[in-house]
């Protein structure tokens, strides 16, 4: 009894997050069940079972990380970073390909994407860099941290995983922007990126270039990469205000949508539950992200502060870019919708970050 009370006390203010995450888990299982139907038949029992196991594992991992003192990551920052580099590098040699991209490692039947770990490593190492008062030099305060980020992003881009590479860069960039680094530097870099953009175009794989051009005009390739966006829009739009109802999404049920249980899971939800459903999902994400940023006010340790900032930004960017992608607001870059999409890697890393945040929260109640 006493123990339960203690936990309740420790979790004060965090109950909203737990409640929201549990709801998102439920929504995940329900919408995966629906998306794994074909012509009215449930065809993905194995995948669904696997995902339920992943969710359970993720919660266990969350509880573990909840008890690990976050200062440990400060000390291990470089080690974790190096480890993540080794893993994403290892993909080249022992990884295997899925859908034209080599980004998976296989461990005893379970595959995972090391680039997910890279996101966590970048948040930790950035938090460590930013927690020191910035030196008044461009090289030390700006170039040093961002060369770590750049190296990591470049290797990920080579896999090729454009989505994660951009995300890693964006998370680091946003964290830096809200730190005490001179803002001038960011403007320079922005200009530099704009100049370099045409050159980096050539570095992209042809399927990535295709995705970007069809994002600008999906009708260029209505049968190829434009297809997904067109179908996604039809599915979402046809859901109307209240949706077609559970298992009644025709676009979903008849194989119109590729990758609908992974990156395009939001489309399935929007088709079956309509605008109200979409609103509800966004509300849950908003509650989680709001609670994370609210915590910033109470934190007294710079490292914890930036760690929290990074975690919040991670959650936000994932949700914003993924949903924007299904709506045709962003190009299809291949990012999961956290907590909902099928897949273990991003689920685990999201829960690790959540665990880290909970540990910080318990230190700064």
């Amino acid at each position: 009894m006493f123990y339960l009370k203690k936990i309740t006390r420790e979790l004060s203010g965090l109950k909203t997050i737990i409640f929201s995450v549990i709801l998102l888990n439920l929504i995940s299982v329900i919408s995966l069940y629906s998306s794994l139907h074909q012509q009215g038949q449930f065809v993905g029992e194995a995948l669904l079972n696997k995902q339920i196991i992943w969710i359970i594992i993720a919660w266990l991992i969350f509880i573990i990380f909840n008890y690990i003192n976050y200062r440990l990551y400060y000390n291990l920052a470089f080690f974790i970073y190096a480890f993540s580099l080794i893993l994403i590098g290892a993909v080249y040699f022992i990884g295997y390909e899925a859908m034209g991209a080599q980004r998976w490692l296989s461990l005893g039947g379970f595959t995972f994407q090391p680039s997910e770990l890279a996101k966590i490593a970048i948040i930790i190492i950035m938090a460590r860099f930013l927690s020191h008062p910035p030196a008044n030099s461009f090289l030390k305060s700006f170039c040093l941290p961002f060369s770590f980020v750049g190296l990591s992003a470049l290797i990920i881009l080579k896999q090729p995983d454009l989505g994660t590479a951009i995300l890693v860069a964006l998370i680091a960039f946003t964290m830096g922007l809200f730190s005490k680094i001179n803002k001038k530097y960011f403007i320079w870099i922005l200009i530099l990126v704009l100049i370099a953009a045409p050159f980096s175009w050539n570095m992209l794989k042809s399927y990535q270039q295709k995705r970007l051009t069809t994002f600008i005009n999906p009708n260029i390739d209505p049968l190829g990469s434009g297809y997904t966006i067109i179908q996604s829009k039809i599915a979402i739009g046809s859901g109307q205000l209240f949706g077609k109802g559970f298992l009644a999404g025709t676009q979903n049920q008849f194989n119109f949508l590729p990758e609908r249980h992974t990156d395009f899971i939001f489309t399935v939800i929007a088709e079956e539950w309509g605008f109200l459903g979409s609103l509800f999902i966004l509300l849950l994400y908003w509650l989680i992200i709001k609670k994370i940023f609210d915590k910033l006010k109470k934190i007294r340790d710079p490292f914890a502060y930036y760690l929290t900032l990074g975690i919040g930004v991670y959650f936000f960017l994932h949700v914003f870019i993924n949903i924007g992608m299904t709506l045709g607001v962003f190009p299809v870059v291949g990012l999961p919708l956290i907590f909902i999409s099928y897949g273990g890697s991003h689920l685990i890393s999201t829960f690790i970050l959540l665990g880290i945040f909970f540990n910080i929260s318990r230190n700064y109640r």
Partner: protein
Amino acid sequence: MKFNIKKSFYDNKSLPKLLKRIVLVAFIILLVVLFNYQAINGSYYLKRAENNYVRAIPLYSLRGSIFDRNGTVLARDQASFNLAVFPYQIKNEKDILFKKLSEEAGISEKIIHKNYEENISGYFSPTNIIFDVSKETALILKEKYPKSLLVNSAPQRKYLKPLELAHILGYVKKASSLQSQFKKYGYKPLERIGIYGIEQYYDSYLQGQDGGDLVEVDVSGNVVGFLGRKKPVSGNDIFLTIDSKIQKFAKNSFAKKRGSLILLESGSGKIIALYSSPSFDPNLFIAGDNLTSLYKNKFSPLFNRAIQGAFPIGSLIKPLLATAGLEEDKIEPETTFNCKGRLNLGNNIFRCSGSHGIQNLEQALAHSCNVYFYNLGLRLGPENISHWLKAFGLDSKTFIDIPYEKKGFVPTPKWKKEKFGQSWYSGDTLNLSIGQGYLHTTPLAITIAINAIANNGYLVEPTLLKKIGEEETSYLFKKSINISQKNINIVKNGLRKTVSKNSGTARMLKNLSLGICGKTGTAQTSGKSHGWFVGFFPYKNPKYTVSVFLEKGGSSYQALRVVYNFLSNLKQNNLIEVK
């Protein structure tokens, strides 16, 4: 909203607020877009989703045609008619429909089911179930089953001179049969890829880009809306250096014999004819007929003897050896050896084809005297011989522009030691000196080597490509072997004498009056001998180099007969410049 960076960060209350506002604004943007799709335009999308089916109708691109040097079509795409169904529309009546179709089109039900399973790619994509029916059948069936069937015309590769050009052109295969293998390289299931010959080597030029229409259709299959089109892009046409008329004579001169015939422009290496016998019909691969008899044929018709097989060359080595002897100063043109029909080496006897008496270089070439070249070989020694054979390119590829070319092999004492643990004996040198033993080359490689004598010491890189699309390929690659002009002329004279002299081994070709120089060869094998002839003409300023190889053809005499028939046909039909 002001963010004061001078303040200590954790005292700053406005930063979290700013972050939250950004998130809020971003989410509101998403909600606005969602509201636009779902509430404002929801009924429009609902209509698109429920009442209409979206169909992707492929528009196939045409693969580039292949022409000969005069613009005669050798391979092109023709329309073939396929019948397709939309899996979603026939899901409840599939078995009944297939049964009926099988009766009416005269195709087994099994094949229809098999095609359906193989080609299905989505519930709303047309799936081909019957291939290559006549236009009439296609239209009759479409009229009977207007809702379920789609007539789908797809390009099909057609080879117009199949047997003559099979080894040069190769063929194409639907990537679907190789789907799993090629998926990672980005081939879509409907694409065709070149498998052999020019079709493979220049695949990326010949390959077009498929396009398609994305249309909306109502329940009866009528198109009610057009969503977008990707235009198909045709591949590039390719013009070859081959002359199909000459190629035809090349084929006809073989009848049932096995072997290869090559005719090329001496100076440029442009191949005018290249035929390997027996040949096959590449159209069989397009139709997907039963090919086991082709694969099981003991004479391997799929095998391009001109470039894929390495054989012993017999006396063809002699002009190369003569060049080596002159260049290494081991002999003078006037150096003579006395041929008594044999050469004794220890207990072994090495024979000659006749008892030629005293022979100088010219005579030895004209009579193909083994004894002369035994002696020359001993003077040169194995290292020198293999050095020169390699210089003539006998152990490397010619880099002709069709795939799967094989390299020849030139033995060396070092190789023999490593391979058999034995020293190189003088007997080995004698065998090598007359092109027997371990030496093997492809017919094309030895042709290019002897062509170097016609070509003042230059090895050309043979090519089949004249132009791609409208672009002429002025591609000429040649490599000098550094032989003095004087020595070339001496060897050339000897090669001329094989034809012009009444006792020359190739005197049969004399009355063609083409001014041919050349060398015959008979290479002993475990069974019947291989027959060879390689030559060039006209003597003064060689324009053409010709070679004939007869696998187990008996002797060089048979090869000479093929050459004679071939060249006299060309001459009669004015297909070659005689002057």
